[in-house]
């Protein structure tokens, strides 16, 4: 890596700085973005389960139609 930098002169250092910065930006952005998507999906799934449970309870409690 260090040898590659030295053989590519000034532009090698410039491009290496760009690549490392882009990787650090991605490392900063991706985890909270993924976590937020997972959390929203979990919350939606829980709500679906809750509403299904409530619906089945209501169905059981309802008196049979004559």
């Amino acid at each position, binding site marked *: 890596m260090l040898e590659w930098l030295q053989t590519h002169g000034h532009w090698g*250092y410039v491009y290496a*700085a760009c690549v490392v*910065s882009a990787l*650090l930006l991605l490392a900063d*952005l991706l985890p*909270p973005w993924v976590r*937020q998507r997972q959390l929203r999906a979990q919350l939606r799934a829980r*709500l679906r389960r809750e509403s299904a449970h409530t619906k089945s309870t209501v169905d059981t409690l309802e008196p049979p139609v004559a």
Partner: protein
Amino acid sequence: MNPILRWFHQLGSPPYFYAFATRWMPWTGGIALVLAMIGMYWGLYAAPADYLQGDSFRIIYIHVPSAWMSMLIYVLMAINGAIALIWRIKLSEIVFLSCAPIGAMFTAITLVTGMLWGKPTWGTYWEWDARLTSELALLFLYFGVIGLASAYDDVRQGARAAAVLALVGVVNIPIIHFSVQWWNTLHQGDTVRLIGKSSIHPSMLWPLLIMATAAKLYFLFALLLRARGLLLEHERGKHWVRSQVLGVSD
């Protein structure tokens, strides 16, 4: 009440902040991306090479905005830490916690790009000079804040403990800024000044200012993203999350 003050008070409410973040995230992220592309093209290909440092000076367009952001974010984090300690406002704790990883990322970029600039310019990647060492101390302070905040089971208690560390660490910010004046360092002095004439040519200054604006907008975007996620995590059982975030009406 003053409309700005009223807006500021409203911003302290989690549902209002969530809606605010959702509305502004695409704008801040989008404009940051466009400005970064313009600034990078201008800085890397259109701006002239430095007469002394050659093309390696172009690292300035990443290094300098990141360095400014590393200090600015720390100050913002400490202010929110102080608010969290004094008034115990939940949103300040969340903003405080959200600032730390973004600030650490900008500090890491500053150090790595500085090293990559240092090798062709000074002949070495690293020197224990005042500016470099104090910036490294800033990275450790960010790590300390992140580590301390996550060491507690109670998130709010962890945020307040980390806020004390952040406030103590503020002393490092003037040291970083004035290190090139107080000590005889390898790092060059200030080339861009808010007050007085900058010693950098406008053809090189403009892309730098564009990149600095892009970095600030990126920070806002990342802050809103992280704060929104933390809010969702802490308030997941609240009624407003069901109605506002998941679109479920009871």
